[in-house]
């Protein structure tokens, strides 16, 4: 698939500032952080969750555990993924029961990834609450799923793709709007 870059949505500095802001919002709207935990959806949700947790530590030294979730086994479109998808273990080093969970991902689009993530979570236990934090929300939901914490809302068309590059994964950091070119 060939793509052409249309414009940059966020620079590295803006990503960082947004994550700080999200961390503050989460702490503010959680009524206590004792039971709070972040779960990053592989792949790019993971460094985002870790950075939000780090930012939270800077706010009154709040220590929030971070888990990672691989949703490959829970997808509804397995036949269309790579023919030999690499599976990763989900690492959730705390019991899920009764926890106030925040799922973290880079982009919220159709909502199917989050649906799969919730299936995965509920196989592990019964959280008290699950909310969603995303860096970019781009419309076009195909399921009744919404994010409580959003970095930026971006209007997009279906031919467009949001490309998120994070330093932990891509060795560079920015968010771009690109378009499919056929």
């Amino acid at each position, binding site marked *: *698939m060939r*793509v052409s870059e249309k414009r940059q949505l966020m620079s590295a500095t803006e990503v960082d500032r947004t994550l700080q802001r999200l961390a503050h919002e989460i702490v503010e709207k959680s009524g206590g952080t004792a039971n709070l935990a972040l779960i990053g959806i592989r792949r*790019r949700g993971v460094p985002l969750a870790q950075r939000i947790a780090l930012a939270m530590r800077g706010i009154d030294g709040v220590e929030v555990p971070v888990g990672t979730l*691989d949703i490959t*086994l*829970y997808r509804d479109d*397995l*036949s*269309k*993924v*790579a*023919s*030999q*998808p*690499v*599976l*990763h*273990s*989900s690492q959730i080093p705390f019991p899920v029961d009764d926890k106030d969970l925040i799922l973290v991902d*880079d*982009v*919220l*689009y*159709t*909502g*199917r*990834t*989050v649906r799969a993530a919730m*299936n995965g979570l*509920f*196989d*592990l*236990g019964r959280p008290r609450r699950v909310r969603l934090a995303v860096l970019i929300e781009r419309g076009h939901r195909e399921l009744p799923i919404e994010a409580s914490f959003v970095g930026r809302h971006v209007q997009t068309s279906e031919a467009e*793709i*949001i*490309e*998120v590059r994070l330093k932990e994964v891509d060795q560079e950091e920015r968010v771009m709007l*690109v378009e499919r070119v056929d």
Partner: protein
Amino acid sequence: MPERLRHLLAIESLSAEQITFLLDEARPFQEFQRYPLKKLATLRGKTAALAFFEPSTRTRISFATAASRLGADTMNLQAEASSLKKGESLLDTARTLDAMKPDCIVMRHGASGAAAFVASRLEIPVINAGDGMHEHPTQALLDALTIRDRRGTLEGLRIAIIGDILHSRVARSNLQLLGKFGCQFALCGPAMWVPREFECLNLPVRRMQRIEDALDGADVVLVLRVQQERLHEPALPLDEYTLLYQLSPERLRLARPDALVLHPGPMIRGLEIDPSVADGPQSCVLDQVTNGLAIRMALLFLMIGAGSESDEAKGPPHAAD
């Protein structure tokens, strides 16, 4: 990314990269066995036909559980099935199953090459669960996973295989697999069961007459089951077998202090293996069983779950959802 597996018929035709990929892919399924809710919907609506023309308990249950935990259904053909007694040919049986549209066939059969035979005549993937004396690929994979987990590597290990090597598809698959990682092998058992031909396999294999020599400095000891149905050809009294070839605690001490003891099962305590060794800290038999489940889940996932309609030309996926 290693070449996609269409069938799993033999370890011999797999590359070291493919094997490593399979072992890595099994890791999440190892953790999965500890989840409170062991049920995925990943293979919902898919069917695995389990065609066991030879009796089997552990392998059949392992594949059935693997399929079920992935959400798949199974068709169960067992050796006692009346159609086989009535003289139906292997091909007809396979075609009958195929006509019910399973997504793959997992096959165990008494004839070497049976799985390849069926694979060449059907469109669906075939997983060899043991064919005659030829190979038992998933056993070697679960053994490798067990060894790798405990030792950190498969490279350059010294492997002792003790018992009836001649009739053992487990031994052959393990030789093939570990041979691809530079391991060295010492084989030991009753002379008529450890033929010279094993030294001609293009692998570093030595036959040892005495078990003590085979165990000396070994990293892994693979104890084979005494197939009692074969003990009358020629006659070998069981207590003589025990005297010469049993893996006792004293003999195990000749291997490295951290040597692993593997057995494909079922064990006969007190015959080929001393009970205290079977239950001791070096024994991996229970891990083998758990890992067998993980390996088989990974295989079913890769072969009938993922990417049947994928367009490889698309290139790496972008963040979409």
